[in-house]
């Protein structure tokens, strides 16, 4: 097929003076600005657009909007490839590239289509029933099922485009710029209220773009143009085109996605592809229209069968002709409108089949008959014929009689319209059944939203205009306080006559053909009958068992028919069967839009210490600690992490080392009751801590388990500086605020996080004092500044704080200086230490040294250990109350076989123990066996010249000297270990006190 052979010479809102080239499945086609990909394919006579999900049946275009179940394509190429894009919502641009989906090797010759022949053996629930056994085969099944199922494939590459998020507030949000929405927007805008109008299509007007209606004597499209001009002149009205309101959330928040640059190949510089809107509206007017519903007849999925409204939309809106010999099959007046519009462009209408026994009585029907079309009342299309596309229909009266086969090249089908109540339902709104209209309409909503026009079941154009204006005037008066004067234009044209409610058509005498209810998920009338026979009768079960309505279209053209058929089978009314709940999103939303700019480091910002650039310059390797990055080790030459750590630890323990500890949480605690507050917080006492002293403290949770530890110093009578672990800096602060604000508001205490205001570094090793003496202005002698002293001082003339505290077990100091001075102070310390062989050490060495000392950290304070488990039982004060105190002696916490802190060494003195290994008596014994504990931390101790570990072991040091296996089944390894004291080095702590 070449050339736009189905393009009309005139009509439609397209610009024929410009030709756009595009590619579908490698073939080049032409279209015009104003086209969608769907309308351009129609104009080019391309019928076959995809293969179906389960049976791989040939499929063509079915609709003209977001409800499209079939025409889904992979759009664009490379890193911009986007699967499952509805061709009906893709605006054509020059160079557009699209691929059909779910076919191999090609669309026309698809191997998976053998599933059609086998379809009798693939009923509803087939996968559930068949692939259950034998269970060990599941992995084999999974491979083939995953390959056979699914639609398009994602690019698998990072998205090169930008996405934005916007928050907006308004008085009145109007969703939908069809007749009801525009009528509402005019009135709301004129009241002065702040209005946002969103519309999902490429141009406003709703069905006024597609139907040939007349308002105030002019074509509806002219009225749309006038209203849009009016609205664009109002400063209080914001218009968002190409914007789908996809979710209605709490407190009247509507989420919408604006496709800013989806209609071009590559977004312009500095312009996002899409923009996500969070719109908080005082009131919302939903004018989302209605979705035409099909009827299920034999092989109703053949390319060439489409919704009647869509057929006239392609003619009227895009000047594209979906067929030249149309059969029309309808239960309402929509079929007649389509017939007239087709006749007006000289397309042939071979027959109009009306399910209603009397046919249509109104003026629509008369006009069709006057044009010489044969109208078959009380009849049905029982089957569409043709292999890759429809070539004829079988027609039969319901009362029985002769089957006629009528040649045609398209079938326009209409089973009536279903209001798009999705947003109303998402708002928490109830749905009422309107028996006359044969559809669910919005009932009461707990939120401030109201539905108008077709989505409220008011299908007549005059009705839409009236109701939109009335509701807008009412809401605007509520908000603005003044009555709003308005007029509503008059509509010319006849009203519709009543539809017949009919969803499934009996099969013809040959019982041939599949009657699809859900075309996207390949769910047939027979599948619903089977579900009913097998007891899956609630709509929720029906949905999950058959997959009805579970496709990307979320059953926009199938849910109604499915539940109506189930209602028939159960002999219940439709409202008695009920609907499944509508959930966001209304149409699929790209993850990129939801992420917005919160990707990469904007999602997870990097916290860097003031000394970060020094670490970078030294080639430090990093370790993440929450959002912080900390230097893990500083390799020299080809050193491995173990080599580097060995060198850093040895140099520190024999000389002096410097470590960046800025990331520790620092909380400034001030006030007359600061000591009392800390006394309640910590298990040990702080109220009597002398000024100028630091103390190690332990905090429990309220349930009595250990939570956090750190040193806290008293800087003044009413002034403490508290430190927390890096990980708990935020949570400890939050908990302290909770106590001060809600539990003990009488305590006169103020707390402030100062973590980022102070740079911190630890200088450790026997030569630490020599280095600092060159920089600090106070006497560092062991008597004047002993272990656990704290003081304000000057570091190279700048204000600083000095603490004589040690995590490494060596003579050590921690220096705090203003964050701005951190980098310089660090550099000066390295320079001053050069003559003593100072080395920087990272958190790997920090960890090694704390393991050598048996100090606990996060892997031991793990939310399951008590103070006693950690060997810190002596820190629980008996003289005062503290958080968690009443709980520490619960029976489960005092069991002496609880897992407690121990040290481990390999029996052979050389094999590394694996972190996370399980402690068992004999790993070679057949399982199950008692799990006695696990390894929490491992290191190689240079000083002991062997690997060591910390572990939590049932009964703890009661078992000192016992030999066990540290088993690591994941790697099928096991090491014989001996339980020792966790204080491997300098157990008396002499080095810290020199």
């Amino acid at each position, binding site marked *: 097929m070449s050339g736009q052979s189905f393009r009309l010479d005139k009509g439609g809102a397209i610009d024929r003076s410009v030709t756009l080239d595009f590619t579908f499945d490698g073939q080049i086609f032409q279209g015009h600005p104003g086209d969608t990909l769907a309308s351009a394919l129609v104009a080019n006579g391309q019928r076959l657009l995809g293969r179906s999900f389960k049976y791989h049946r040939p499929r063509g275009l079915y609709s003209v909007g977001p409800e499209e179940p079939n025409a889904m394509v992979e759009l664009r190429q490379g890193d911009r490839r986007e699967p499952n894009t509805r061709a009906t919502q893709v605006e054509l641009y020059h160079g557009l590239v699209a691929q059909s989906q779910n076919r191999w090797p090609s669309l026309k010759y698809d191997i998976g289509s053998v599933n059609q022949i086998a379809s009798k053996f693939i009923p509803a629930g087939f996968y559930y029933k068949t692939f259950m056994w034998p269970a060990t085969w599941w992995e084999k099944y999974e491979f083939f099922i995953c390959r056979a199922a699914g639609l398009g494939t994602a690019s698998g590459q990072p998205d090169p485009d930008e996405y934005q998020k916007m928050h907006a507030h308004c008085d009145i949000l109007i969703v939908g710029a069809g007749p009801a929405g525009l009528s509402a927007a005019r009135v709301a805008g004129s009241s002065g209220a702040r209005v946002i109008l969103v519309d999902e299509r490429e141009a406003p007007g709703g069905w006024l773009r597609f139907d040939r209606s007349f308002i105030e004597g002019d074509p509806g499209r002219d009225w749309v143009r006038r209203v849009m001009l009016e609205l664009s002149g109002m400063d209080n009205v914001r218009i968002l085109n190409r914007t789908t309101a996809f979710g209605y959330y709490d407190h009247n928040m509507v989420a919408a996605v604006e496709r800013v640059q989806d209609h071009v190949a590559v977004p312009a510089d500095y312009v996002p592809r899409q923009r996500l809107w969070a719109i908080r509206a005082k009131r919302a007017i939903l004018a989302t229209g209605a979705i035409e519903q099909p009827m299920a007849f034999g092989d109703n999925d053949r390319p060439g069968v489409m919704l009647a409204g869509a057929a006239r939309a392609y003619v009227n809106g895009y000047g594209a002709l979906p067929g030249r010999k149309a059969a029309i099959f309808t239960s309402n007046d929509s079929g007649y409108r389509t017939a007239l519009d087709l006749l007006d462009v000289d397309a042939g209408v071979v027959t109009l089949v009306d399910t209603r026994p009397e046919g249509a009585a109104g003026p629509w029907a008369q006009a069709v008959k006057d044009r010489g079309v044969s109208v078959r009342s009380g009849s049905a299309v029982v089957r569409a014929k043709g292999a890759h596309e429809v070539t004829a229909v079988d027609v039969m009266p319901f009362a029985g009689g002769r089957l006629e086969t009528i040649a045609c090249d398209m079938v326009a089908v209409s089973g009536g319209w279903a209001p798009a109540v999705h947003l109303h339902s998402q708002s928490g709104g109830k749905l009422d059944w309107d028996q006359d209209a044969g559809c669910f309409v919005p009932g009461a909503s707990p939120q401030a939203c109201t539905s108008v026009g077709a989505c409220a079941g008011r299908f007549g154009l005059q009705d839409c205009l009236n109701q939109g204006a009335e509701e807008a005037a009412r809401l605007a008066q509520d908000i603005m306080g003044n009555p709003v004067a308005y007029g509503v234009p008059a509509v010319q044209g006849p009203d519709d006559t009543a539809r017949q409610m009919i969803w499934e058509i009996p099969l013809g005498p040959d019982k041939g053909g599949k009657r699809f209810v859900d075309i996207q998920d390949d769910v047939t009338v027979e599948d619903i009958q089977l579900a009913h026979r097998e007891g899956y009768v609630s709509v929720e079960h029906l949905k999950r068992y058959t997959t009805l309505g579970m496709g990307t279209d979320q059953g926009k053209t199938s849910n109604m028919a499915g539940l109506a058929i189930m209602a028939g089978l159960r002999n219940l009314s439709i409202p008695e069967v009920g609907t499944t709940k509508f959930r966001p999103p209304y149409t699929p939303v790209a993850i990129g839009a939801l992420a917005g700019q919160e990707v990469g480091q904007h999602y997870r910002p990097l916290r860097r210490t003031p000394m970060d650039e020094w670490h970078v310059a030294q080639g430090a390797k990093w370790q993440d600690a929450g959002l912080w990055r900390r230097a893990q080790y500083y390799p020299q030459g080809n050193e491995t992490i173990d080599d580097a750590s060995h060198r850093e630890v040895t140099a520190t323990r024999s000389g002096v080392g410097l470590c960046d500890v800025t990331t520790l949480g620092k909380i400034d605690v001030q006030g007359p009751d600061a000591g009392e507050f800390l006394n309640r917080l910590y298990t040990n006492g702080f109220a009597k801590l002398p000024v100028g002293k630091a103390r190690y403290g332990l905090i429990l949770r*309220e349930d009595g388990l250990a939570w956090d530890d750190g040193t806290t110093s008293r800087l003044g009578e009413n002034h403490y500086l508290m430190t927390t672990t890096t990980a708990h800096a935020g949570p400890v602060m939050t908990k302290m605020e909770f106590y001060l604000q809600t539990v003990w508001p009488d305590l006169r205490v103020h707390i402030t996080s100062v973590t980022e205001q102070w740079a911190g570094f630890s200088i450790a090793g026997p030569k630490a004092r020599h280095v600092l003496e060159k920089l600090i202005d106070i006497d560092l002698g062991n008597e004047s500044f002993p272990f656990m002293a704290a003081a304000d001082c000057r570091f190279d003339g700048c204000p600083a704080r000095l603490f004589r505290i040690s995590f490494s077990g060596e003579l050590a100091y921690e220096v705090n200086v203003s964050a701005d001075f951190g980098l310089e102070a660090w550099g000066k310390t390295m320079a001053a230490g050069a003559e003593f062989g100072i080395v920087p050490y990272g958190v790997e060495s920090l960890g090694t040294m704390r393991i050598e000392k048996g100090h606990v950290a996060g892997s031991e304070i793990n939310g399951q250990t008590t103070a006693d488990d950690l060997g810190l039982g002596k820190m629980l004060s008996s003289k005062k109350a503290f958080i968690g105190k009443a709980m520490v002696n619960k029976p489960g916490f005092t069991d002496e076989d609880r897992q407690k802190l121990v040290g481990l060494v390999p029996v052979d003195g050389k094999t590394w123990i694996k972190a996370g290994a399980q402690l068992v008596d004999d790993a070679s014994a057949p399982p199950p066996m008692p799990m006695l504990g696990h390894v929490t931390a491992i290191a190689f101790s240079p000083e002991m010249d062997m690997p060591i570990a910390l572990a939590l072991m049932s009964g703890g040091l009661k078992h000192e000297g016992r030999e066990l296996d540290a088993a690591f089944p994941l790697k099928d390894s096991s090491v014989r270990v001996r339980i020792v004291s966790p204080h491997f080095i300098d157990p008396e702590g002499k080095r810290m006190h020199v």
Partner: protein
Amino acid sequence: MFVIRCPYCGDRDMVEFTYGGDASKKHPDNIEEPDQAVWQAHVYERDNPRGWHLEWWQHTSGCRSWVKVARNTLTHEIAGTAAADEPLALPVSEDAS
């Protein structure tokens, strides 16, 4: 996505707040309270109501105040908010089912 009125800052989006648990359970006033049963109840016993619930929310990305919020767990309606030291009564749940 609801809106919470901070008594100090005004209406703010919920993303600025962090949920902090049941505010109807009073923390024992006395840190010296010796009865383990009192602490046991405070630490572990929580209702899971369908309907109105008194909650703590902290305005973490704002003034860092702890705020009392009367929220309906079924509808996400918020009947009112109050500062930590102010009383806040819950509406009576209509639906007791």
